[in-house]
């Protein structure tokens, strides 16, 4: 059996998870969906080397975030999921660490259309997540993911971080961005009080869901 979403026929689903118990959990759920899990036992090496092996073996993926610490992979899940989605292979990140590692995940959030918590993973949510990914490949964004050009006001800066406000989103909430999350092209303009523009999904509810792209400075 397979899952048909738009032009994507999904039969084999890659499971990238360093915890054998969790891997087994994904396996059972995918089998319940009549899909064929492709379990990655690791170690997976570097992302560059690994990503080239993925294409022929699966049509979609479910992926944990923390993969490096255990030696299971030389990369973390957010990076893999973003890379796969940017290659039009639907991939879903499943992690309980979304808020705890917001800086790391935000770097890749543009190409992570759907992020699930482990407790949310079931056949319905996984299928919906794949649909969201494939919709974005076709340029159809959910309102909470639509990238609008918007005003970014810099409130304060320190050595590592830039604190910004998005007046078009919520002027009462300050967002901390690492400098790495901001295009180097506009670093020159970053100072308290500066106003920049970027593409941001200002339909998002929570600040950990926000991603920033296509920065513009004066």
């Amino acid at each position: 059996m397979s899952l048909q979403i738009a032009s994507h026929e999904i039969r084999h689903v890659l499971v990238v998870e360093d915890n054998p118990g969790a891997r087994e959990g994904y396996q059972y759920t995918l089998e319940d969906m009549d899909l064929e899990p492709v379990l990655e036992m690791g170690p997976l090496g570097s992302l560059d080397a690994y990503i080239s092996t993925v294409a022929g073996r699966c049509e979609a993926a479910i992926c944990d975030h923390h993969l490096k610490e255990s030696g299971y992979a030389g990369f973390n899940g957010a990076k893999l999921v973003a890379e796969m989605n940017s290659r039009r292979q639907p991939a879903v990140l499943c992690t309980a660490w979304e808020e705890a590692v917001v800086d790391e995940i935000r770097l890749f959030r543009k190409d992570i259309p759907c992020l699930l918590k482990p407790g949310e993973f079931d056949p319905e949510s996984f299928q919906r997540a794949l649909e969201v990914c494939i919709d974005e490949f076709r340029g159809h964004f959910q309102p909470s993911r639509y990238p609008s050009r918007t005003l970014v006001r810099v409130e304060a800066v320190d050595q590592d971080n830039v604190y910004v406000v998005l007046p078009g989103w919520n002027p009462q909430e300050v967002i901390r961005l690492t400098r790495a999350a901001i295009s180097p092209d506009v670093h020159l303009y970053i100072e308290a009080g500066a106003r920049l523009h970027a593409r941001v999904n200002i339909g998002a509810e929570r600040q950990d869901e926000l991603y920033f792209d296509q920065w513009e400075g004066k």
Partner: protein
Amino acid sequence: MGAIVAKRKLAILDVGHGNCAVLQDSNGVVVIDAGPGNALEMYLREQEIRRVDVVLISHADQDHLGGLIALLASRAVEIGRVRLNTDSSKGSKIWDDLLYELELLDQDNRLDFQPFLTREDKGAYDQGSIEIKVLAPSKYLAGRGPGSRDRHGRRILTNSLSAVIRLSEKGIPLALFPGDLDEVGLENLDCSADDLRAPLLVFPHHGGRAGTSELKTFVRELCDRVRPAKVIFSIGRGRYGTPLLEVVSAVREHVEGVWIACTQLSEHCASELPKVHPKHLNREFAQGREGRKCCAGTLVIDLDRAEGLLPIHGDHQAFIGLAAPSALCRRV
């Protein structure tokens, strides 16, 4: 003059906590208030509207103008005129943000921005057969400005200066948009009783307290003057606890048979969200749709048909019966 609009309609958008209405008339598009976030941009994109001829902002609170900052920055549409009253009491960064975006467009002569919106602007904003009448604030009140006092010594707040805008067609009232009008603003309204009447009222301040001490008296006086058949609360679920039970009860008490509709499902009415996507909603963009937070969602009046306000009352009531066990609009 804007592009000819294929379908004349008035949409009261679900933007979450905030206000926004879009009038698509035969010769152009008018936006009344622009609540925060990208809801307005998303609605305009969905409706394939590429030019907004007039933007009227009732007052300088972010839940009424945040979406204008977003829309200006997005460059998603061409904007003709923007009118709103300046508010020096705010001294706020968001006010500067708005001016920053307006200036960027003004420098290119792409926008006509004037920092005033008073009741003397008769017919200036009409874009077809819908008459747009600005009933308040008066030049006197706007001239006094927030932070000062009126002729009776009462403190004028930002909300007191809310522009009150009524739409009508061929002299028949259609809807009243009073921004976040408070009791000082209401008492300073200098217009005839007939001017305020409208079958549809978007209730001020989202059904919150609005700095009004005698809330029931305020509700009664407003309802007596407007005599609405339908009252809309433009709210965001989980934000600020609106509408207040006290307000909804007072509206029901003073307006017999009133149809109350909230754009989103208040937590007072349902502690949990519906498990499935509701089917009664209009097709138009609604901020709460994705998260199943809508109650009535975006409300629409098709100006060329006699269907009245959509979603259909019966369908909306059926949804409330299923999804809102403690609905404020039904509590005894």
